[in-house]
């Protein structure tokens, strides 16, 4: 009975078998839970995404499936990301209502700030929201609407309103108030919104082009 009486090789094989059984059992448990939760997680993520879209659309009606009507873009200079970015189009009776872009501000105080911007077909901003950020709590997190309404300031602006030269924080001679103590964060967000609008102005027609999916 005692382990010492067993030959070392047998002991090792026994240990290996027990470990393998434990691994299979652990794997089985995770597989079952994954199967049970998969649909729900996908549905929650989808609902979460659509709820974010509603926020930046500022009540504009639309009747298409935004998550299906997309176009992919890549412009590291203006949109801040080397990767391909997905833009979503909102339409009402087939007419474009807005394009939703998700640019990245690479120059936040502590890392990238992910934004979501809805631009109307005429180039004016409907709404901007912060999707994710790592800014200092209490200082840089004013870009979150739960903390302050600062980011709502962008609604109604466009490329050219204000002038390109004034698309900066006030400290740099622009039109946008920086948040006290968080100039770097303010500068990153203002710059990114400005560049995204420039991107929209340059590529407006391609962004609004025919639906990627056919409406029934």
């Amino acid at each position, binding site marked *: 009975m005692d382990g010492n009486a067993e030959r070392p090789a047998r002991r090792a094989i026994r*240990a290996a078998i027990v*470990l393998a059984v434990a691994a299979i059992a652990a*794997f089985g*448990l995770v597989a079952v839970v994954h199967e049970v*939760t998969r649909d729900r997680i996908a549905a929650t993520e989808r609902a979460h995404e659509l709820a974010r879209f509603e926020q930046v659309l500022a009540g504009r009606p639309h009747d298409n499936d935004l998550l299906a009507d997309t176009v992919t873009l890549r412009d590291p200079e203006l949109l801040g990301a080397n990767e391909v970015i997905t833009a979503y189009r909102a339409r009402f009776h087939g007419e474009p209502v807005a394009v939703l872009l998700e640019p990245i501000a690479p120059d936040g105080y502590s890392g990238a700030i992910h934004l979501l911007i809805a631009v109307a077909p005429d180039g004016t901003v409907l709404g901007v929201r912060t999707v994710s950020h790592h800014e200092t*709590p*209490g*200082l840089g997190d004013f870009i979150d609407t739960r903390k302050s309404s600062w980011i709502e300031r962008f609604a109604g602006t466009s490329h050219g309103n204000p002038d390109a030269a004034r698309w900066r924080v006030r400290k740099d001679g622009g039109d946008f108030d920086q948040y006290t103590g968080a100039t770097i964060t303010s500068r990153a967000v203002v710059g990114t919104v400005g560049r995204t609008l420039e991107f929209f102005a340059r590529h407006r027609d391609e962004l609004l082009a025919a639906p990627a999916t056919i409406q029934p």
Partner: protein
Amino acid sequence: MTPAAILRAGFRDQNPGLVQLLGLCPLLAVSTSLGNGLGLGLATLAVLVASNGLVSLVGRSLPAEIRIAVFVLLIAALVTSVELALSAWLPELHAALGIFLPLIVTNCLVLARAEAFASRQPIGNALLDGFAMGGGFLVVLVALGGVREVLGRGSLGGDLHVLLGTGASSSGLHLFSEQHGFLLALLPPGAFILLGLGLAWRQARKAAAS
């Protein structure tokens, strides 16, 4: 061991947060509000009870060489399951707890209880120990979270609605405007200082008692 002794050990004499000082990383990082503390506390509690129970069932029949490896596997599987369940039913809390949820795997408290206690105790005692240790950890997390939230944001339980999942947009008490909050309390150094004060309080009580 009597049930009362197990409970006393977890909540007071061997409290993981204030006496054993196990699992400090999540304790300090996540306790920025009452709601976050409660969320991580409950997740850790659930994992501890389940892992202690399983370990007590299989622990004694395992060859010594691979015992810890099997415990780690079990704990990892449990934590992954809890994480998937949270992201399905409480996605906002899942987002708030972020990386610290998978890191429950590395919370040495869970492995320590499995190895030091559950593997050599009957299942009843092991489950109770999981509950007591998890509960003791939860109490410290909630207390630290509550104090940090009051000092740093002027509210208490301001994000509890995330936990309850009622769809409400606010909850809890709002004592003063967040702008007048004491930022240090929300940052990791503030958490260290407050935990230090908690330790001092605990030592003072112990000294007074003896």
